[in-house]
Protein backbone atom coordinates (compact mmCIF):
# COMPACT_ATOMS: atom_id res chain seq x y z
CA UNK A 1 0.00 0.00 0.00
CA UNK A 2 3.04 2.25 0.16
CA UNK A 3 3.05 3.37 -3.48
CA UNK A 4 -0.61 4.38 -3.55
CA UNK A 5 -1.69 7.30 -5.73
CA UNK A 6 -3.85 8.53 -2.90
CA UNK A 7 -2.30 7.43 0.33
CA UNK A 8 -3.24 8.97 3.61
CA UNK A 9 0.22 8.13 4.93
CA UNK A 10 2.23 9.96 2.30
CA UNK A 11 2.45 13.71 2.31
CA UNK A 12 -0.01 15.94 0.49
CA UNK A 13 2.52 17.29 -2.00
CA UNK A 14 3.77 13.82 -2.88
CA UNK A 15 0.21 12.61 -3.66
CA UNK A 16 -0.56 15.63 -5.79
CA UNK A 17 2.73 15.33 -7.67
CA UNK A 18 1.95 11.70 -8.47
CA UNK A 19 -1.55 12.59 -9.76
CA UNK A 20 -0.14 15.21 -12.13
CA UNK A 21 2.54 12.78 -13.26
CA UNK A 22 -0.13 10.26 -14.31
CA UNK A 23 -2.06 13.10 -16.00
CA UNK A 24 1.09 14.03 -17.91
CA UNK A 25 1.55 10.43 -19.07
CA UNK A 26 -2.07 10.31 -20.31
CA UNK A 27 -1.65 13.61 -22.18
CA UNK A 28 1.63 12.41 -23.72
CA UNK A 29 0.08 9.15 -24.96
CA UNK A 30 -2.84 11.06 -26.52
CA UNK A 31 -0.40 13.49 -28.18
CA UNK A 32 1.58 10.49 -29.49
CA UNK A 33 -1.61 9.05 -31.00
CA UNK A 34 -2.12 12.34 -32.86
CA UNK A 35 1.46 12.44 -34.08
CA UNK A 36 1.18 8.90 -35.44
CA UNK A 37 -2.20 9.56 -37.08
CA UNK A 38 -0.78 12.52 -39.02
CA UNK A 39 2.75 11.28 -39.70
CA UNK A 40 1.85 7.81 -41.01
CA UNK A 41 2.92 7.64 -44.69
CA UNK A 42 0.17 7.35 -47.25
CA UNK A 43 1.54 4.26 -48.93
CA UNK A 44 2.09 2.19 -45.79
CA UNK A 45 -0.47 -0.31 -44.58
CA UNK A 46 -2.71 1.02 -41.79
CA UNK A 47 -2.72 -2.36 -40.03
CA UNK A 48 0.39 -1.87 -37.84
CA UNK A 49 -0.79 1.67 -37.04
CA UNK A 50 -4.15 0.38 -35.82
CA UNK A 51 -2.47 -2.28 -33.68
CA UNK A 52 -0.23 0.43 -32.25
CA UNK A 53 -3.28 2.62 -31.49
CA UNK A 54 -4.90 -0.24 -29.59
CA UNK A 55 -1.71 -0.81 -27.57
CA UNK A 56 -1.56 2.91 -26.67
CA UNK A 57 -5.25 2.85 -25.73
CA UNK A 58 -4.73 -0.12 -23.41
CA UNK A 59 -1.80 1.74 -21.83
CA UNK A 60 -4.04 4.73 -21.16
CA UNK A 61 -6.76 2.44 -19.79
CA UNK A 62 -4.20 0.87 -17.44
CA UNK A 63 -3.17 4.24 -15.99
CA UNK A 64 -6.78 5.41 -15.55
CA UNK A 65 -7.93 2.20 -13.85
CA UNK A 66 -4.77 1.51 -11.84
CA UNK A 67 -4.01 5.02 -10.57
CA UNK A 68 -7.08 7.24 -10.93
CA UNK A 69 -9.54 4.50 -9.97
CA UNK A 70 -6.99 3.23 -7.47
CA UNK A 71 -7.47 -0.43 -8.43
CA UNK A 72 -3.72 -1.18 -8.42
CA UNK A 73 -3.65 -0.47 -4.69
CA UNK A 74 -6.68 -2.55 -3.72
CA UNK A 75 -6.67 -6.08 -2.31
CA UNK A 76 -5.62 -8.73 -4.82
CA UNK A 77 -9.03 -10.47 -4.72
CA UNK A 78 -10.75 -7.22 -5.68
CA UNK A 79 -8.29 -6.62 -8.54
CA UNK A 80 -8.89 -10.12 -9.86
CA UNK A 81 -12.68 -9.94 -9.55
CA UNK A 82 -12.63 -6.91 -11.88
CA UNK A 83 -9.79 -7.82 -14.23
CA UNK A 84 -10.64 -11.51 -14.79
CA UNK A 85 -14.24 -10.97 -16.02
CA UNK A 86 -12.97 -8.13 -18.21
CA UNK A 87 -10.27 -10.40 -19.66
CA UNK A 88 -12.96 -12.92 -20.60
CA UNK A 89 -14.99 -10.14 -22.23
CA UNK A 90 -11.95 -9.04 -24.25
CA UNK A 91 -11.65 -12.62 -25.42
CA UNK A 92 -15.38 -12.60 -26.23
CA UNK A 93 -14.89 -9.48 -28.37
CA UNK A 94 -12.01 -11.07 -30.28
CA UNK A 95 -13.90 -14.34 -30.73
CA UNK A 96 -17.14 -12.71 -31.88
CA UNK A 97 -15.31 -10.46 -34.35
CA UNK A 98 -13.44 -13.45 -35.81
CA UNK A 99 -16.44 -15.80 -35.94
CA UNK A 100 -18.82 -13.03 -37.02
CA UNK A 101 -16.66 -12.00 -39.96
CA UNK A 102 -16.39 -15.65 -41.03
CA UNK A 103 -20.19 -15.99 -40.98
CA UNK A 104 -20.66 -12.73 -42.91
CA UNK A 105 -18.18 -13.95 -45.54
CA UNK A 106 -19.97 -17.28 -45.78
CA UNK A 107 -23.39 -15.62 -46.26
CA UNK A 108 -22.03 -13.12 -48.80
CA UNK A 109 -20.36 -15.82 -50.86
CA UNK A 110 -23.22 -18.31 -50.55
CA UNK A 111 -24.09 -18.18 -54.26
CA UNK A 112 -20.43 -18.17 -55.25
Amino acid at each position, binding site marked *: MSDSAINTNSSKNENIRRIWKVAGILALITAAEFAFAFAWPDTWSRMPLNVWFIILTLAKAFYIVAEF*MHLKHEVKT*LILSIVLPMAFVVWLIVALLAE*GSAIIDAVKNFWG
Partner: protein
Amino acid sequence: MASTISVSNKNIWNGGVSPLKASYGKLMMWFFLLSDAFTFSALLISYGMIRYMHPAYEGNYSEFTFANDSSNLYWPIPEMVFDAFPFFHGVHLPLLFVGLMTFILILSSVTMVLGVEAGHRMDQKAVEKWMLWTIIGGFTFLGCQAWEWSHFISGSDAGLTYVDGSFFQGANLTQNQYGPPLFADLFFFITGFHGTHVFSGVILNIIIFYNVVVGTYQRRGHYEMVEKVGLYWHFVDLVWVFVFTFFYLV
Protein backbone atom coordinates in the same frame (compact mmCIF):
# COMPACT_ATOMS: atom_id res chain seq x y z
CA MET B 1 -22.01 -15.87 23.99
CA ALA B 2 -18.77 -14.27 22.95
CA SER B 3 -17.64 -17.41 21.17
CA THR B 4 -20.46 -17.27 18.59
CA ILE B 5 -19.60 -13.79 17.37
CA SER B 6 -15.83 -14.19 17.34
CA VAL B 7 -14.36 -14.30 13.88
CA SER B 8 -13.15 -17.66 12.65
CA ASN B 9 -9.57 -17.61 11.45
CA LYS B 10 -10.24 -20.49 9.08
CA ASN B 11 -12.36 -18.56 6.57
CA ILE B 12 -12.38 -14.80 6.08
CA TRP B 13 -15.61 -15.09 4.05
CA ASN B 14 -17.66 -16.18 7.08
CA GLY B 15 -18.48 -12.62 8.05
CA GLY B 16 -17.25 -10.09 10.54
CA VAL B 17 -14.42 -8.80 8.36
CA SER B 18 -14.19 -7.15 4.96
CA PRO B 19 -12.09 -9.53 2.87
CA LEU B 20 -11.81 -7.01 0.01
CA LYS B 21 -11.00 -4.13 2.40
CA ALA B 22 -13.51 -1.93 0.62
CA SER B 23 -16.93 -0.72 1.68
CA TYR B 24 -20.17 -2.15 0.32
CA GLY B 25 -20.90 1.00 -1.68
CA LYS B 26 -17.51 1.07 -3.37
CA LEU B 27 -17.71 -2.63 -4.27
CA MET B 28 -21.17 -2.19 -5.75
CA MET B 29 -19.92 0.74 -7.81
CA TRP B 30 -17.08 -1.45 -9.12
CA PHE B 31 -19.44 -4.25 -10.11
CA PHE B 32 -21.87 -1.81 -11.69
CA LEU B 33 -19.03 -0.37 -13.76
CA LEU B 34 -18.00 -3.90 -14.76
CA SER B 35 -21.52 -4.59 -16.05
CA ASP B 36 -21.53 -1.23 -17.82
CA ALA B 37 -18.28 -2.22 -19.52
CA PHE B 38 -20.10 -5.31 -20.85
CA THR B 39 -22.67 -3.04 -22.53
CA PHE B 40 -20.01 -0.90 -24.16
CA SER B 41 -18.20 -4.07 -25.28
CA ALA B 42 -21.40 -5.17 -27.02
CA LEU B 43 -21.51 -1.81 -28.83
CA LEU B 44 -17.89 -2.28 -29.87
CA ILE B 45 -18.66 -5.72 -31.33
CA SER B 46 -21.68 -4.31 -33.22
CA TYR B 47 -19.50 -1.53 -34.59
CA GLY B 48 -16.82 -3.98 -35.74
CA MET B 49 -19.30 -6.32 -37.44
CA ILE B 50 -21.30 -3.58 -39.17
CA ARG B 51 -18.11 -1.97 -40.40
CA TYR B 52 -16.91 -5.34 -41.69
CA MET B 53 -20.17 -5.79 -43.65
CA HIS B 54 -19.45 -2.61 -45.62
CA PRO B 55 -16.76 -2.22 -48.26
CA ALA B 56 -13.65 -0.37 -47.12
CA TYR B 57 -12.06 2.59 -48.87
CA GLU B 58 -9.29 1.24 -51.09
CA GLY B 59 -7.30 4.24 -52.30
CA ASN B 60 -4.63 6.49 -50.75
CA TYR B 61 -5.49 8.39 -47.57
CA SER B 62 -4.57 11.78 -48.99
CA GLU B 63 -6.84 11.32 -52.00
CA PHE B 64 -9.87 10.27 -49.96
CA THR B 65 -13.31 11.24 -51.28
CA PHE B 66 -16.66 10.30 -49.80
CA ALA B 67 -18.72 7.53 -51.38
CA ASN B 68 -21.48 8.79 -53.66
CA ASP B 69 -22.53 5.61 -55.42
CA SER B 70 -25.23 3.70 -53.56
CA SER B 71 -24.01 0.44 -55.14
CA ASN B 72 -20.63 0.96 -53.45
CA LEU B 73 -21.22 2.85 -50.21
CA TYR B 74 -17.81 2.29 -48.63
CA TRP B 75 -17.06 3.17 -45.01
CA PRO B 76 -15.67 6.70 -44.61
CA ILE B 77 -12.35 7.49 -42.91
CA PRO B 78 -13.67 8.97 -39.65
CA GLU B 79 -11.06 11.72 -39.38
CA MET B 80 -12.21 12.99 -42.79
CA VAL B 81 -15.78 13.23 -41.46
CA PHE B 82 -14.93 14.98 -38.20
CA ASP B 83 -12.53 17.63 -39.50
CA ALA B 84 -14.33 20.79 -38.40
CA PHE B 85 -13.51 23.19 -35.58
CA PRO B 86 -15.75 25.97 -34.19
CA PHE B 87 -15.13 29.36 -35.86
CA PHE B 88 -12.98 27.74 -38.57
CA HIS B 89 -15.64 27.15 -41.18
CA GLY B 90 -14.52 25.09 -44.16
CA VAL B 91 -10.97 24.59 -42.82
CA HIS B 92 -9.82 20.95 -42.89
CA LEU B 93 -8.65 20.21 -39.34
CA PRO B 94 -8.98 16.45 -38.84
CA LEU B 95 -9.21 15.09 -35.28
CA LEU B 96 -8.42 18.45 -33.70
CA PHE B 97 -11.80 19.08 -32.08
CA VAL B 98 -12.25 15.52 -30.85
CA GLY B 99 -8.68 15.70 -29.51
CA LEU B 100 -9.63 18.80 -27.55
CA MET B 101 -12.66 16.95 -26.15
CA THR B 102 -10.37 14.10 -25.08
CA PHE B 103 -8.07 16.50 -23.24
CA ILE B 104 -11.02 18.20 -21.53
CA LEU B 105 -12.34 14.87 -20.24
CA ILE B 106 -8.92 13.65 -19.08
CA LEU B 107 -8.38 16.96 -17.30
CA SER B 108 -11.75 16.71 -15.54
CA SER B 109 -10.71 13.21 -14.44
CA VAL B 110 -7.55 14.72 -12.95
CA THR B 111 -9.51 17.36 -11.02
CA MET B 112 -11.74 14.53 -9.74
CA VAL B 113 -8.75 12.62 -8.28
CA LEU B 114 -7.50 15.84 -6.74
CA GLY B 115 -10.94 16.19 -5.12
CA VAL B 116 -10.75 12.64 -3.77
CA GLU B 117 -7.24 13.32 -2.47
CA ALA B 118 -8.47 16.48 -0.70
CA GLY B 119 -11.31 14.41 0.80
CA HIS B 120 -8.77 12.08 2.42
CA ARG B 121 -7.31 15.11 4.18
CA MET B 122 -10.83 16.30 5.22
CA ASP B 123 -10.10 19.56 3.41
CA GLN B 124 -13.64 20.71 2.62
CA LYS B 125 -12.65 23.88 0.74
CA ALA B 126 -10.30 21.96 -1.59
CA VAL B 127 -12.93 19.26 -2.26
CA GLU B 128 -15.43 22.01 -3.18
CA LYS B 129 -12.93 23.63 -5.53
CA TRP B 130 -11.96 20.42 -7.38
CA MET B 131 -15.53 19.10 -7.58
CA LEU B 132 -16.59 22.39 -9.14
CA TRP B 133 -13.78 22.17 -11.73
CA THR B 134 -14.87 18.60 -12.50
CA ILE B 135 -18.48 19.73 -13.05
CA ILE B 136 -17.31 22.59 -15.31
CA GLY B 137 -15.17 20.13 -17.27
CA GLY B 138 -18.16 17.81 -17.67
CA PHE B 139 -20.42 20.58 -18.97
CA THR B 140 -17.69 21.77 -21.35
CA PHE B 141 -17.37 18.26 -22.77
CA LEU B 142 -21.15 18.01 -23.21
CA GLY B 143 -21.17 21.37 -24.97
CA CYS B 144 -18.44 20.20 -27.34
CA GLN B 145 -20.41 17.05 -28.03
CA ALA B 146 -23.54 19.07 -28.80
CA TRP B 147 -21.54 21.11 -31.29
CA GLU B 148 -20.09 17.96 -32.87
CA TRP B 149 -23.57 16.43 -33.21
CA SER B 150 -25.17 19.54 -34.71
CA HIS B 151 -22.30 19.87 -37.18
CA PHE B 152 -22.64 16.22 -38.19
CA ILE B 153 -26.43 16.52 -38.54
CA SER B 154 -26.33 19.70 -40.63
CA GLY B 155 -23.38 18.47 -42.70
CA SER B 156 -20.64 20.19 -44.71
CA ASP B 157 -21.09 22.59 -47.63
CA ALA B 158 -20.03 19.93 -50.12
CA GLY B 159 -23.00 17.72 -49.32
CA LEU B 160 -23.51 14.63 -51.39
CA THR B 161 -24.90 14.29 -54.91
CA TYR B 162 -26.09 10.75 -55.47
CA VAL B 163 -25.65 9.18 -58.92
CA ASP B 164 -29.39 9.64 -59.54
CA GLY B 165 -28.90 13.41 -59.17
CA SER B 166 -30.52 13.91 -55.76
CA PHE B 167 -28.64 16.13 -53.30
CA PHE B 168 -28.32 15.64 -49.54
CA GLN B 169 -26.47 17.48 -46.79
CA GLY B 170 -25.64 16.16 -43.33
CA ALA B 171 -26.78 12.98 -41.64
CA ASN B 172 -29.76 11.46 -39.87
CA LEU B 173 -30.82 7.93 -38.99
CA THR B 174 -31.64 6.99 -42.61
CA GLN B 175 -29.38 9.20 -44.74
CA ASN B 176 -25.73 10.09 -44.46
CA GLN B 177 -23.73 12.48 -46.60
CA TYR B 178 -20.48 10.80 -45.56
CA GLY B 179 -21.25 7.19 -46.49
CA PRO B 180 -23.39 4.32 -45.20
CA PRO B 181 -26.41 5.38 -43.05
CA LEU B 182 -25.28 2.84 -40.44
CA PHE B 183 -22.13 4.89 -39.89
CA ALA B 184 -24.35 7.77 -38.76
CA ASP B 185 -26.54 5.43 -36.67
CA LEU B 186 -23.51 4.03 -34.86
CA PHE B 187 -22.13 7.52 -34.31
CA PHE B 188 -25.40 8.69 -32.77
CA PHE B 189 -25.80 5.57 -30.66
CA ILE B 190 -22.27 5.13 -29.34
CA THR B 191 -21.41 8.78 -28.66
CA GLY B 192 -24.99 9.33 -27.50
CA PHE B 193 -24.80 6.45 -25.02
CA HIS B 194 -21.49 7.74 -23.76
CA GLY B 195 -22.83 11.31 -23.62
CA THR B 196 -25.76 10.11 -21.51
CA HIS B 197 -23.24 8.61 -19.10
CA VAL B 198 -21.35 11.91 -18.96
CA PHE B 199 -24.62 13.75 -18.32
CA SER B 200 -25.61 11.39 -15.47
CA GLY B 201 -22.07 11.78 -14.11
CA VAL B 202 -22.39 15.56 -14.06
CA ILE B 203 -25.76 15.30 -12.27
CA LEU B 204 -24.26 12.93 -9.66
CA ASN B 205 -21.29 15.26 -9.25
CA ILE B 206 -23.62 18.21 -8.68
CA ILE B 207 -25.55 16.29 -5.99
CA ILE B 208 -22.33 15.29 -4.22
CA PHE B 209 -20.95 18.83 -4.62
CA TYR B 210 -24.07 20.17 -2.89
CA ASN B 211 -23.55 17.73 -0.01
CA VAL B 212 -19.91 18.76 0.27
CA VAL B 213 -20.85 22.44 0.40
CA VAL B 214 -23.47 21.97 3.14
CA GLY B 215 -20.92 19.95 5.13
CA THR B 216 -22.65 16.55 5.11
CA TYR B 217 -19.40 14.61 4.69
CA GLN B 218 -17.49 16.79 7.13
CA ARG B 219 -20.06 15.80 9.79
CA ARG B 220 -20.03 12.17 8.65
CA GLY B 221 -16.27 12.10 9.11
CA HIS B 222 -15.28 10.83 5.66
CA TYR B 223 -15.62 11.75 1.99
CA GLU B 224 -16.25 8.26 0.62
CA MET B 225 -19.19 9.44 -1.51
CA VAL B 226 -16.75 11.61 -3.45
CA GLU B 227 -14.67 8.49 -4.08
CA LYS B 228 -17.72 6.59 -5.38
CA VAL B 229 -18.80 9.24 -7.88
CA GLY B 230 -15.11 9.59 -8.68
CA LEU B 231 -15.01 5.94 -9.75
CA TYR B 232 -18.01 6.52 -12.02
CA TRP B 233 -16.46 9.67 -13.48
CA HIS B 234 -13.15 7.94 -14.27
CA PHE B 235 -15.08 5.12 -15.95
CA VAL B 236 -16.79 7.66 -18.22
CA ASP B 237 -13.35 9.01 -19.11
CA LEU B 238 -12.11 5.46 -19.70
CA VAL B 239 -14.96 4.71 -22.12
CA TRP B 240 -14.20 7.89 -24.04
CA VAL B 241 -10.58 6.76 -24.46
CA PHE B 242 -11.90 3.66 -26.22
CA VAL B 243 -14.53 5.55 -28.25
CA PHE B 244 -11.78 7.93 -29.38
CA THR B 245 -9.61 5.04 -30.60
CA PHE B 246 -12.22 2.80 -32.17
CA PHE B 247 -14.54 5.42 -33.62
CA TYR B 248 -12.15 8.20 -34.63
CA LEU B 249 -8.64 6.77 -35.03
CA VAL B 250 -8.92 3.20 -36.34
